[in-house]
């Protein structure tokens, strides 16, 4: 649905309310995308509109397109479940890194609110998620997600990076196929131009 950008919010709201009560069956459980990109809208107006559509019209609002980022108002439970575990609010800065003193075997899941140090390997099937950096004193062969709250400057350090998948903030990378040379000392994965690069040192 794209409302007329020239019309006032109250006019749009009144029109919509009338249409919804006239043809309720048509709107019921229908999927709808609300496009408000051509029209500046206040937060309270948007929530009023959202309430009208979802509760009264029983519309399934799939997406709201806005000029500004107000997407937080939407409830999209199906989407949220498929997303990687994400901490919604940035945690209080906490300098205490989580230290794991053994190898993370398949099935292990480590979540740290700051940096994460692993004194051992991360084997295939294990997951390490950290809000800050991930440092592995061993081979990284499983899944690592640094900067889990969206910090793209987070880095992954390991003696050897041959993961099943690595993520930094919102960027996901899989290693290229084929054998790679063994690093001399250690490797760092970091974001460069929206891509994850692995640098051998």
């Amino acid at each position, binding site marked *: 649905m794209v409302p007329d950008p020239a019309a006032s919010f109250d006019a749009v709201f009144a029109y919509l309310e009338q249409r919804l009560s006239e043809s309720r069956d048509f709107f019921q459980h229908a999927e709808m995308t609300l496009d408000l990109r051509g029209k500046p809208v206040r937060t309270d107006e948007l929530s009023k509109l959202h309430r009208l559509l979802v509760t009264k019209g029983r519309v399934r609002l799939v997406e709201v397109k806005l000029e500004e980022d107000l997407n937080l108002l939407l409830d999209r439970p199906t989407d949220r479940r498929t997303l990687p575990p994400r901490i919604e609010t940035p945690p209080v800065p906490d300098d205490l890194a989580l230290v794991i003193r*053994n*190898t993370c*075997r*398949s*099935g*292990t899941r480590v979540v740290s609110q700051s940096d994460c140090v692993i004194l051992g*390997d991360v*084997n*295939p*099937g294990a997951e390490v998620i950290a809000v800050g950096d991930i440092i592995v004193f061993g081979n990284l*062969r499983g899944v690592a997600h640094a900067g889990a709250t969206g910090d793209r400057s987070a880095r992954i350090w390991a003696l050897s990076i041959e993961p099943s998948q690595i993520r930094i903030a919102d960027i996901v990378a899989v290693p290229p196929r084929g054998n790679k040379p063994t690093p001399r000392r250690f490797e760092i994965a970091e974001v460069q131009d929206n891509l994850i690069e692995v640098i051998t040192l």
Partner: protein
Amino acid sequence: MAGKTIVVTSGKGGVGKTTTVANIGTVLAKKKYSVVMIDADIGLRNLDVIMGIENRIVYNLVDIIEGKCRKQQAMIRDRKLHNLFIIPAAQTREKTAVNPDQMKKLCTELAEEFDYVLIDCPAGIEQGFRNAVAGAQTAIVVTTPEVAAIRDADRVIGLLEADLLKDIYLIINRLNHRMVKKGDMMSTEDIISLLAVPLLGVIPESEEVVISTNRGTPLVHNRGSKAGMAFQQIGARLNGEDIPLNLEQKITLMDRVKRFVWS
């Protein structure tokens, strides 16, 4: 003196747990130790078939636990070795018929009477695995050089460590040396570097294994079989004998002559 309780596990199915139990049990019994093998795979019992005692089963593991028979009644003596016994699993029951505490009690009691108690663990990491592992002091993890089997073995080792079972050994089964040389199969070194568990031995891939399991006679009874030799060495190492790991498994002409003379 209490004997050793050893569980043979893997996570993934079909990697050779039951075959390993049957052969190691036979090797240890041949060394004149008293051995009892427990099939903990309730509902999918196989150890009896591999040992060739299928038609002699009257009572089973669940009967002992439920107090329907005495332990001695359910133990089946091996055809060849009088100091080797098998406790078969119940085929018509489920894994939930037994709980870890009951298994622990049974294993402790058996360890009083026997030198070795070997437990054949079912595949998976659910109740059956929990039962099988409960009474064991030592674990042997069997894997094949396949990525899926190694991943599962890794998970199982993690679970065993979480259960504070620290005495864990590895057996690599069905290794094809020719494929490793060509680079088509993971090598022993690769597997050990990933799993980081002491290696007990490597069993080469062999048709003899299938033949012996189908016949119901453990492979170690056949002289001159490479896989049988590997099992004999594993049994000896488990018994604390110092036998160097010969990873290449090259059998030279001299070895053949020696073996011929010795046998």
